[in-house]
């Protein structure tokens, strides 16, 4: 499903269908899901279409959120100086790009899962996040690759007391997605005390996986600070 295609392509799954048809310079891009249908005209001599997972903060409305909040169905408690790893699922968003040697252009983003937003922090200074609830898994869970991705979370408790977490917030600017049969991210959380911590991403490419096109990097947006500071707690 994910990968690089020629300018004439067709991907059909149970949840959606993507196709680029036509000949010569003028092509028609079509994408169908159960809820909507999108059609665009592409003028191109050569180039490719890339279908890959993107930062899961763009849907259902682009521009509302730049952070992902994963609420854990069961709270996780870490003893002082504990380092451990768990896995959660995240909502899949698929990006379709036109690429050539000079440039990358996003032509579509969609998801097949229902979206919801939540406020992290107080109304006067909090941030709107894409909200998602997930079970916590000790090992990589089975996912529906058309709807979910796997987020590995490495946690280190640097505080001298026990810390309980019920939710984690990640910033889209820091995200690095990979894919093979499913989407994958590798997050890192450092617990600084009971209510604050830092979240970031391990950007090293796992074996047998491909790197996605990062929308925020494609937009030319860069952040000097590669960590998000969770200052409003984990509950």
């Amino acid at each position, binding site marked *: 499903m994910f990968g690089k295609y020629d300018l004439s392509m067709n991907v059909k799954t149970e949840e959606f269908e993507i196709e680029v048809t036509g000949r010569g310079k003028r092509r028609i891009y079509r994408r169908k899901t159960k809820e909507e249908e999108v059609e665009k005209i592409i003028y191109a001599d050569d180039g490719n279409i890339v279908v890959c997972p993107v930062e899961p903060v763009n849907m259902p409305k682009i521009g*509302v*959120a730049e952070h992902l909040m994963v609420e854990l169905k069961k709270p996780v408690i870490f003893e002082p100086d504990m380092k451990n790893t768990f896995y959660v699922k995240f909502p899949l968003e698929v990006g379709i790009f036109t690429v050539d040697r000079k440039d990358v252009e996003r032509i579509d983003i969609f998801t097949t899962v229902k979206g*919801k*937003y939540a406020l992290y922090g107080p*109304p006067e*200074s*909090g941030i*709107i996040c894409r909200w998602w609830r997930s079970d916590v898994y000790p090992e990589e869970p089975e996912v529906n690759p058309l709807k979910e991705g796997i987020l590995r979370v490495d946690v280190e408790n640097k505080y001298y007391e026990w810390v309980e977490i019920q939710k984690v917030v990640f910033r889209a600017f820091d995200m690095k997605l990979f894919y093979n049969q499913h989407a994958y991210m590798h997050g890192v959380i450092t617990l600084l005390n009971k209510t604050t911590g830092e979240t970031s991403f391990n950007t090293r490419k796992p074996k047998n996986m491909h790197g996605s096109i990062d929308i925020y990097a494609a937009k*030319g947006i860069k952040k000097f600070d590669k960590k998000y500071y969770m200052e409003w707690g984990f509950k």
Partner: protein
Amino acid sequence: MNVFATIKDTLNYEVAGIKIIEMIEFAVILFIAVIIARIARTITRRRLKEKVSPTTLSSIEKIVYYGIIIIGFFIALPKGVSLSGLLVAGGVAGIVIGFASQTVVSNLISGLFLMVERPVEIGDSIAVGDISGVVKDIRVLSTTIRTWDGIYVRIPNEKVFNSSIYNYVAHGARRFEYRIGISYSDDANKAIELIKGILAQHPLVLKYPEPDVFVEELGESSVNIVVKIWAPSSHWYSVKTEMLWKIKVLLEENGIKIPFPQRVIWMAGGEKKEGRGKGK
């Protein structure tokens, strides 16, 4: 030959100690500086448009534009002109102009404070006094607003600074509420569950803070349920306009009536009559 000599003499003619040729040089260099400043401003805007906020972009544009003009001014300044003398003259002129135009100075100072304090930014939805709309620009002397019905309004910065400013999008989320009356014969708990269910389906109704739905009062004609919803500040209005009708349709589909105002009248003879309206 005489023509050239005349032109040369004219160009070398001094007015207030400055040659005319130097004045022309000054004007040309300043003109070129303005053109370069405009080009630089356009390039800055195009390069940074998607990378920084509109307010920051506007500030950077102004710094680039006026910075180049000021540099051009000092490069163009004729050699005979004393900089310290110019500053003294400018200072004196400033005082005179300041006294003569206190309102302008007041607007200028207010504008500077607005730029430092930043209670509003370009693109914010605000209300100042009885004017509300979207901030289009914050200039040194005035703030321009496009009202909701598309009218350009220029508000002097002094007025903005001295007024209560309502910034509707300064915070990430904001709350709005509905009051919905249902019939006394209907189940309020069922209505509350239905409303909570439809709110849970809408992506822009925030999960946290959770919507609050409860019976607020037992009214004259209805049981009044209040619905308090948090939504992203950037989209609250679309959610507000969308949800009320959806709730009304949902309640009616489930047999819950939204009653008209009504009053039961007991006649002196014991005969009971029911009527609509708040009249007799």
